[in-house]
């Protein structure tokens, strides 16, 4: 199965812009399903971006982040062809990680 993480990292000049879209329901715990039962909270708590072994961005998320969450940031450094490691953990202990090449 493809990774749940889609990343676009593009280096321009000495900064690298990173966009990520993650496949995750991000259930807030406030919504009921068709049978009227509450859907338990199920959302990504922490999303980490690492470049050259160093963390360049860490997201602490709550239940109010949209489904299939998206985030965009940029950091100094990062060269074409280098690796950017992305991993997340959610409140049910699930996680995923992927490595993307900087374009």
């Amino acid at each position, binding site marked *: 199965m*493809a990774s749940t993480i*889609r990343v*676009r990292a593009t280096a321009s000049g000495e900064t690298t812009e990173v*966009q*990520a*879209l993650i*496949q995750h329901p991000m259930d807030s715990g406030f919504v009921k399903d068709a049978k009227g039962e509450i859907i338990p909270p199920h959302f990504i708590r922490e999303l980490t971006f690492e470049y050259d072994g160093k963390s360049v961005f860490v997201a602490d998320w709550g239940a109010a982040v*949209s*489904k*299939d969450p*998206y985030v*965009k940031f940029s950091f100094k450094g990062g060269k074409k062809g280098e690796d950017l490691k992305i991993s997340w953990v959610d409140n049910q202990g699930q996680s995923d990680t992927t490595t993307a090449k900087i374009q």
Partner: protein
Amino acid sequence: MNVRSAIHVASAAVFSATLALATLALTATPPATAADTIDPVADAKAFQKYFTTKFPKLKLEDFVNGPYSMDEGMHRQWEEKEQFPPYEFSLDMGKELFAKPFKNGKSFADCFANGGIGIRQNYPYFDEKEGKVVTLELALNRCREANGEAPFSYVKDEMAALTAYMAFTSRGKPFDIKIPNDPRALAAYQNGKQYFYTRRGQLNFSCATCHVQSPGERIRAEVLAPALGLLNAMPIYRSEWSGMGTISRRFTTCNSQIRGVPLEPQADEYRDLEYYLSYVSNGLPISGPGARP
């Protein structure tokens, strides 16, 4: 309405002046004759003219962006979403599903012209053997059944993913819906047009009430899309559904919103409605899959 149809009649070069005068007299009463002669070409021209006059600043292809061409604030939110659109996952799933062979070794590519790539703009078409309109969603499920596979739900993820992928391969190609020289095709077109303009549900709305009379206006948070180009972006990822939606899903939910009981997906009325709506948007580019509020 009477003024507009009079102008329409006058601009029809073919009619002689006397005939124009005669129909002018008729326009006071409900124009029974004009509506009975089914003339899709004239309809499409009048349909597109109505919207380009109502929104002079928009180029023809802008209409395929629905509400986002109607409101600057919405347009900015759309641009942000399009940077990394939420339908990305459905598109990938559709590509995978489309290539996955059936148990008998065949795959969707064997059911469609050109392997199913870049053909979405020709759907729906009128099948002269069956004497009915065949939509893309119907053709996909028929392909599955012909190869011994269970059909997909018309309103759920797999069908949305498949149609998303096929639409994606046709992006930019103009709608090219044909009406063959067959009275049944003309009747299907007319039936779709009638459905589009017929008021239904306790709210007593027709599709035209919202998408012809008041595109650009708001119903609470939503801005109404113009009917021209209404299906070009299908299937759509709607924030409201936080999920993908096929044409079948959109038709059935629109019905229930105005408190009309929806027909079953791919009912003849819906197939004819899609035929009419696609035909009058001929020439406008396919932009699916789309993101919508």
